């Protein structure tokens, strides 16, 4: 809301300057976002007289002018079409500094020197854009310093952010009441003298019938005859412009003026268009269509409050008038409407219509049902004095169930209870009195314009904000309860994050909203989609972290960052028919691309492969002590390459996948390099973690290592052999690992491979002797070669 500081003084005496007032308003809950002086400072500009205008010898659109500045005559080039001999103009002399800091210097335009500048309003920052130079009133003395002249009318516009609970302050009088509460000065309401024409009563001009009493508790009308439509007076236009309202004609301007003055929306109808001289307020009909005064056809939602005459709708109540009844050039007689509509009904219709107006914003937040008369009288008074109308005697005011001021139960001692303050009762009640809030019988009586006051806490806030939050105490200590229940999630995610960082991975955070096309590759079900997405690239909730990470990889590769090792921990989203909300488990994703090692002068450049990502997976599992994860080959992934993918399973439950991202998928992210990834669902994994560790004594006796190699069929998996040996190895076999593997050696057939295995034997109780180890070792070799139809390599 824009409030003109000078205009505000019509309603209340203000001792402070605009900046101090702004500070006080901000501290009492009306945040002044900006104070804008109407005239910004400039210097060296005087009133000049144009003594001659000639054409520039070398440019059609430029004129060569002689301007007298009170002391000397200057030759100036001017580009404005409206410059004429004899005009008085704001003239910037050499050395002048304009509001934007622009300094006037000697300039040559097409070989002709120009010493100074004739200014437009735009150049003096008085309007956004000007068509030509500013031609001044003839009464001004030539040579007058123009800034001091303008500064006499200096105003300041306060840009105030009004919170939605205070619609009463979307007005000068509302703000004046707040200033009054802060400073203690009285509010002066505008006088509204009306000379009523008593020849015919209002009832003979109009009758009003409310059928939708819920949506429209009050509807009042006044009739004004023989108005003359014309532009409104200059002072009114200037005031409206200063608060951002475009002047139209005197009638519309007056309703707007009263709107910003009182905060109560009014509407003026052309009375001759009101058929049958009847107003009916009813709910909209099913599929009703109506053309609003902006010429747009509106399909009315049900339960919209409609203002109608005998035959047809003439306005959407509280939102916008109709084209069929608007005040226009031929209008002579006016029906002025001042009504009160139920906020929720206006809000609902406004939202459904996608229509928000100055009127609807105020009605949906809550206008004052008892402010109807003051507003309509003020407007009638202004119309009669500024548009020459005759105001018909009386108001046709239909208000079947008057709305009473709220009585709010209030205990002054509760103020200190909630604020931790030490205010005495007199201070509290005096503070409230400054807001016109009277305390009687343990209750506060709140005026009907204070729609925000409903309960004790609201009253406490009124005290607090006027005492000033800065003056309320701040406590330095409290009693802490030792055992509060709290979730472990954050702690667990923090632990996993730390482990991934220790593995040398860099954390990213990606958008949870992605393209539907991208989401499809990562889920077999339909992904969770957004009804009203911001844009095409944010339509769907990510079913996996991988798409976002691939986007990140692509972003970095395009910026010549070739070696990427990223992880992300975050929620993913899936449909869940068993619950009201979609499933949103936490997931973890790691992606790798580029070189195996940080490129330096002494490392050989090698591209990463499957075993790099698998290595990260295994290291991560070791770090989180997850030793019961099993892997199996998996060739059904939507996004991972069938030949290079494993599934990870714990206790028969698949918790994630690891492998190379399909070319088809990297393709949609414009990735040309191979990317490897693993993705784990943490809600499945976290419960499996055994993070409480118990010390296991370090072996005191030496171990014995023995190696052997076998030739087996290529199709036999390393994991099968290891698992078999572990099973049959007995309790002295501590570990078995593969330390070499190759194919195509001498004396090997094409479908064979050589597996070299290292067995470690260890006892917790004693040093092992060669004979017993040898016996077990030989037995293992025999059984293994038999089991896998292998030959022992010698």
């Amino acid at each position, binding site marked *: 809301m824009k409030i003109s500081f000078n205009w505000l003084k019509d309603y209340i005496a203000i001792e402070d300057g605009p900046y101090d007032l702004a500070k006080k308003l901000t*501290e009492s809950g009306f*945040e002044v976002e900006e104070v804008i002086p109407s005239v910004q400072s400039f210097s060296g500009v005087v009133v000049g007289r144009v003594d001659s205008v000639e054409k520039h010898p070398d440019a059609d659109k430029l004129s060569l002018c002689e301007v007298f500045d009170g002391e000397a005559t200057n030759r100036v080039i001017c580009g404005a079409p409206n410059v004429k001999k004899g005009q008085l103009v704001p003239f910037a002399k050499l050395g002048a500094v304009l509001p934007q800091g622009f300094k006037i210097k000697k300039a040559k335009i097409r070989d002709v020197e120009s010493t100074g500048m004739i200014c437009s309003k735009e150049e003096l920052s008085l309007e956004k854009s000007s068509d030509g130079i500013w031609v001044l009133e003839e009464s001004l003395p030539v040579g007058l310093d123009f800034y001091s002249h303008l500064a006499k009318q200096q105003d300041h516009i306060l840009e105030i952010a009004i919170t*939605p609970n205070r619609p009463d302050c979307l007005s000068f009088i509302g703000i004046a009441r707040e200033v009054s509460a802060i400073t203690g000065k009285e509010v002066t309401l505008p006088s509204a003298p009306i000379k009523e024409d008593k020849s015919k009563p209002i009832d003979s001009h109009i009758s009003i019938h409310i059928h939708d009493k819920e949506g429209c508790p009050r509807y009042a009308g006044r009739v004004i005859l023989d108005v003359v439509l014309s532009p409104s007076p200059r002072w009114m236009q200037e005031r409206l412009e200063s608060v951002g309202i475009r002047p139209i004609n005197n009638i519309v301007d007056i309703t707007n003026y009263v709107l910003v003055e009182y905060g109560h929306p009014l509407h003026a109808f052309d009375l001759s268009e009101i058929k049958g001289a009847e107003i009916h307020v009813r709910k909209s009909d099913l599929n009703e269509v109506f053309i609003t005064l902006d010429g747009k056809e509106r399909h009315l939602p049900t339960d919209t409050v409609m203002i109608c005459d005998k035959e047809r709708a003439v306005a959407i109540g509280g939102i916008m008038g109709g084209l069929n009844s608007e005040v226009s050039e031929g209008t002579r007689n006016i029906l002025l409407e001042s009504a009160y509509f139920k*906020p*929720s009904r206006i*809000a609902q219709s406004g939202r459904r219509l996608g229509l928000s107006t100055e009127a609807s914003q105020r009605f*949906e937040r809550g206008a004052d049902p008892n402010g109807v008369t003051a507003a309509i009288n003020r407007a009638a008074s202004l119309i009669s004095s500024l548009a020459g109308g005759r105001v018909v005697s009386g108001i046709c005011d239909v208000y079947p169930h008057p709305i009473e001021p709220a009585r709010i139960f209030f205990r002054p001692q509760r103020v200190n209870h909630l*604020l*931790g303050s030490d205010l005495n009762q007199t201070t509290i009640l005096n503070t409230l009195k400054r807001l016109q809030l009277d305390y009687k019988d343990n209750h506060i009586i709140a005026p009907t314009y204070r729609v925000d006051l409903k*309960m*004790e*806490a*609201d009253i*406490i*806030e009124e005290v*607090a*904000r006027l005492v000033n*939050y*800065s003056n*309320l105490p*701040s406590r330095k200590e*409290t009693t*802490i*309860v030792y055992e*509060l*229940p*709290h*979730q472990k999630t*954050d*702690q667990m995610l923090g632990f996993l994050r730390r482990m991934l*960082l220790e593995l*040398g*991975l*860099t*954390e*990213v*955070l990606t*958008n*949870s*909203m992605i393209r539907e096309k991208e989401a499809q590759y990562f889920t077999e079900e339909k992904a*969770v989609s*957004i009804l009203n*997405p*911001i844009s095409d690239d*944010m339509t769907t909730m990510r079913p996996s972290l991988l798409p976002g990470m691939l986007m*990140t990889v692509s*972003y970095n590769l395009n*910026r010549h*960052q070739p070696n990427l090792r*990223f992880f992300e921990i975050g*929620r993913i*989203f899936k449909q869940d028919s068993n619950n*009201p*909300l*979609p499933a949103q488990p936490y997931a973890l994703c790691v992606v790798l691309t580029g070189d195996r*090692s*940080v490129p*330096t*002068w*002494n490392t050989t450049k090698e591209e990463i492969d499957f075993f790099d990502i698998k290595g990260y997976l295994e290291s991560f599992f070791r770090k989180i002590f997850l030793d019961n994860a099993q892997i199996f080959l998996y060739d059904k992934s939507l996004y991972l390459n069938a030949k290079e993918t494993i599934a990870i399973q714990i206790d028969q439950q698949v918790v994630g996948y690891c492998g190379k991202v399909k070319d088809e998928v990297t393709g949609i992210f414009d990735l040309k390099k191979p990317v490897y990834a693993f993705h784990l669902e943490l809600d499945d994994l976290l419960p499996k973690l055994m993070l409480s560790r118990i010390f296991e004594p370090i072996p005191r006796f030496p171990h014995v290592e023995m190696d052997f190699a076998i030739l087996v069929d290529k199709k036999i998996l390393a994991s099968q052999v290891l698992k078999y040996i572990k099973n049959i190895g007995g309790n002295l076999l501590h570990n078995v690992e593969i330390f070499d593997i190759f194919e195509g050696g001498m004396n090997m057939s094409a479908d064979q491979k050589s597996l070299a295995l290292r067995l470690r034997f260890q006892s917790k109780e004693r040093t092992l002797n060669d004979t017993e180890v040898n016996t077990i070792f030989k037995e293992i070799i025999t059984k293994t070669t038999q089991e896998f139809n292998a030959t022992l390599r010698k």
Partner: protein
Amino acid sequence: MIGTINPVIFCGMIQKGKCATQAFPFFILKLIIAMHNTIAKIREEFDKDYASVDSLDALEELRIKYLGRKGLISEAFNLIAELPAQEKPQFGQNLNRLKVEVEKKYENLLSRFKSSDHSSETIDLTLPGRQPFIGRKHPLVQMADEIKDIFKNLGFGIEDGPEIESDYYNFEALNIPKSHPAREMQDTLYISDEIVLRTHTSPVQIRVMERTQPPIRIIAPGRVYRRDTPDASHSPVFHQVEGLVVGEGVTFADLKGVIEAFAHQMFGKDIKVRFRPSFFPFTEPSAEYDFNCIFCRGKGCRICKNSGWIEISGAGMVHPNVFKAVGYDSEKYTGYAFGMGIDRLAMLRYGINDIRIFFENDLRFLNQF
């Protein structure tokens, strides 16, 4: 020098030998002298070679020449057999002394070379080393961790809640009914009529209060969503921390104290906090709080538009209607709630002026934190 045989003494021996000529034939005597000369020669040669060793390789050559299996000293030992028996011990002792002497010098030199790596090739030690990949925490997570640490010190527990929320938790229970104009304060993304992407972390307040009874003292960090077109100061995805304290006798003064403590721990003791009245449907009284600008420390600068203050977020006393929604007795219990933007604080802390950069994850950005 231990074991060095003085040539003068040698002569003496020879003169003594004159007496001994009776015992030895002349050619034997000549052999004895030659052999004693051999030891002297080896020593002389070794000393020369020893002085010129300048690399591990040269040292190895030295070792082979003198101490090797076929080295000069071994060969000298082989000569012992040819000496008369009474001369053998004397010669053997002398030769042994030489061997010990040479070995010692060799070892000294070897350890000197090893410790200073005086190999023949000089390595440019200014070349970079072999580096492992290093990981970095996302700056927003760093900021969240810092916030969490401060509140943990202030006795707060950490809670979590879903990002896709029901209309009830995100709005209704927070005293924002369907027609409430405050709904327009936050442009909402919908999954269905009744399901939204949470527009703030405040629904966690409701979930926690439904689950437990007072006293409550928690913060809930998390991701939130708004239907904002991305620009330098808006991101449709961003992060907040919600705070909630409920108990008997909890007051606005506690809220002020906690926020001040936070400001001091986060940005320094000299940072002042300002509370201004504001409006949120789920708190009454409501406040917005500002910190002294952390760049000019309150003096006024370009970043704070010369006001000396930077707006941080909102807070207030829990609205009685919110207590009503979770079945708490607002006569018995009072509470305060506050919010803060993780992204916003990170932007302030790191001097970042475009929120979108957090979600671009440019490695050159991430590597700065």
